[in-house]
C-alpha cells in the first residue's frame, strides 16, 4: 500500500502573528493582569503567519458554542471539499474510486458528520464506508494514515481517503486567560489536509509511485490524561495543555521509535528523514533531542509551523505534502512519520520511498 497523494486547503484570511496577537490582546487585556504576556508568548512560539476561517474582527460575535460549532460545520465542509479535490486530482482518481473515508477533527462536532455532508456534495459511492474520528487531536494525522492503511491492507484493491479539518480559531475562549489558553491561541491555526492511500493492487500502486506504508505503531502512555486535551464547557472546548508535554515526548519517543524499528529489523541509522507533526518549538526541540537529530533534520516541520501554525491533526499531513512535492526520499530509503496527541500517545508510520 502506498501514499498516493496529499492535498491541503487553507481558509482565505491570513494574518501575521503580531496582528493576531494585537487582535486578541484588544479583546482580553481588560481581563489580564499583564497583557504583554499575550504578545510576548505569541512572539515566541515559532509561528509567523496563520490562516483563520473568518476575518479577525468577526470573532467577537461568535460568543456561544452553538455559533462557533455551526460556523465550524459550514467551514469544515467547504475546506474539506477543497482538500479532497486536490488530493484526488494529484492521485488522478475520482470520488467514486474511494472505498473508505476516515474523517478526523477535534475542533468541532456534528451528526451527520462532515464526511457524510461531503458525500452529498461529491460523487462518492453510496457504499463508501465512513469512519469519523473525534478526540485524537494532534495525533490523528498519523493515526488516520495508520487506520486508512489498515483498511487497504484488508482490501488491497481499494483506495482509502483520510480527511483532517482543524479550525482551531473557532475554539478561542473569551473567558480563559490561562497560560495554556494563551499558548494554544498563539500556536494553533486553521487548515485541512486529505490523503489518498492506495491498496497494493490498485492501478496507482502498480505504477510504483508514492512512498509505501510498511508498518504502523500506536503507543498509549498510561495515566497521562491531563497532559493534553479539551475540557468541554458551556462555551465550547477549553484547552488542557500541560507544561509537561516536552518532558513526556523526551521520555517516550526514543523508546517508541527504537522498539518500532527493531520489530521491523531496522535501526535509527536506516532512517533518512523524520516527517514530524509541527507541535510547537518545545515539542520539536524535544523530538530532536530525544532522537539526537541534527538541528536541520526537522526543517520542513519548523517551516510549516512558521508559515501556518500548528494545524493539529492536519499538520503532519501538510509536512508530508511538502516532503512529497519538495523533499521526496531517494528510492529505497526509509522515513518515519510521527505525531503525538491527547491520551497521551504516539503514532508512528514507517515509510519506504
Amino acid at each position, binding site marked *: 500500500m502506498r501514499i498516493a497523494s496529499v492535498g491541503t486547503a487553507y481558509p482565505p484570511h491570513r494574518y501575521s502573528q503580531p496582528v493576531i496577537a494585537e487582535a486578541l490582546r484588544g479583546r482580553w487585556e481588560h481581563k489580564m493582569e499583564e497583557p504583554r504576556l499575550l504578545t510576548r*508568548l505569541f*512572539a515566541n512560539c515559532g509561528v509567523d503567519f496563520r490562516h483563520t476561517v473568518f476575518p479577525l474582527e468577526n470573532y467577537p460575535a461568535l460568543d456561544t458554542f452553538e455559533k462557533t460549532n455551526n460556523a465550524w460545520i459550514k467551514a469544515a465542509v467547504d475546506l474539506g471539499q477543497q482538500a479532497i479535490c486536490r488530493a484526488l486530482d494529484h492521485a488522478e482518481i475520482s470520488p467514486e474510486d474511494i472505498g473508505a473515508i476516515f474523517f478526523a477533527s477535534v475542533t468541532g462536532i456534528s451528526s451527520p458528520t462532515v464526511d457524510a455532508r461531503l458525500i452529498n456534495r461529491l460523487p462518492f459511492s453510496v457504499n463508501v464506508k465512513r469512519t469519523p474520528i473525534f478526540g485524537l487531536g494532534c495525533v490523528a494525522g498519523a493515526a488516520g494514515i495508520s487506520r486508512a492503511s489498515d483498511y487497504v491492507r484488508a482490501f488491497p484493491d481499494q483506495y482509502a481517503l483520510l480527511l483532517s479539518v482543524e479550525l482551531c480559531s473557532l475554539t478561542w475562549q473569551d473567558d480563559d486567560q490561562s*497560560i495554556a489558553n494563551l499558548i494554544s491561541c498563539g500556536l494553533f491555526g486553521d487548515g485541512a489536509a486529505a490523503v489518498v492511500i492506495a491498496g497494493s493492487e490498485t492501478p496507482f500502486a502498480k505504477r510504483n509511485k508514492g512512498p509505501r506504508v510498511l508498518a504502523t505503531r500506536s503507543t498509549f502512555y498510561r495515566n497521562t490524561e491531563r497532559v493534553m486535551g479539551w475540557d468541554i464547557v458551556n462555551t465550547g472546548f477549553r484547552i488542557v495543555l500541560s507544561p509537561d508535554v516536552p518532558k513526556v515526548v523526551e521520555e517516550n519517543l526514543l523508546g517508541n521509535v527504537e522498539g518500532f524499528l527493531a520489530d521491523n529489523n531496522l535501526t535509527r541509522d536506516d532512517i533518512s528523514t523524520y516527517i514530524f507533526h509541527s507541535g510547537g518549538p518545545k515539542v520539536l526541540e524535544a523530538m530532536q533531542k530525544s532522537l539526537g537529530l541534527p538541528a536541520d533534520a526537522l526543517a520542513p516541520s519548523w517551516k510549516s509551523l512558521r508559515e501556518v501554525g500548528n494545524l493539529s491533526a492536519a499538520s503532519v499531513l501538510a509536512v508530508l505534502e511538502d516532503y512529497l512535492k519538495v523533499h521526496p526520499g531517494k528510492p529505497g530509503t526509509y522515513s518515519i512519520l510521527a505525531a503525538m496527541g491527547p491520551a497521551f500517545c504516539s503514532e508512528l508510520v514507517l515509510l519506504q520511498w
Partner: protein
Amino acid sequence: MDDIAKRSIEIIAKAKNIPTDTIHLDTTFEELNIDSLDKINISFEVEEAFSIEIPDEALGSLKTVGDVVNGVKQLVEAKAAAGSAPAATS
C-alpha cells in the same frame, strides 16, 4: 562583574529561587531549567529593573545568562544614546 550582570543574575536567581553564586555568564537556561514562560517573566522583571523595553521577539534567541546581560547592555546603551541625542526640531 559589572552592575548590569550582577543585577541580572539576582533577578534570575530570585525567579528560580536559587542562590546567585550558582549562576554565571556562561550558564545556560537549560541548565537552570528555565522554560519559555520563565523567560517571559524574567523579561518583565529585567525591563522594570533597567527601565528598558525588550522586543517581544527577542526572547527566542536568548540561550545563556550572558545573552541576557549583553542584551540588557545594548538596550541600556541605546536608551542612553537616544536620551543624549539633540531634540528634533519641529
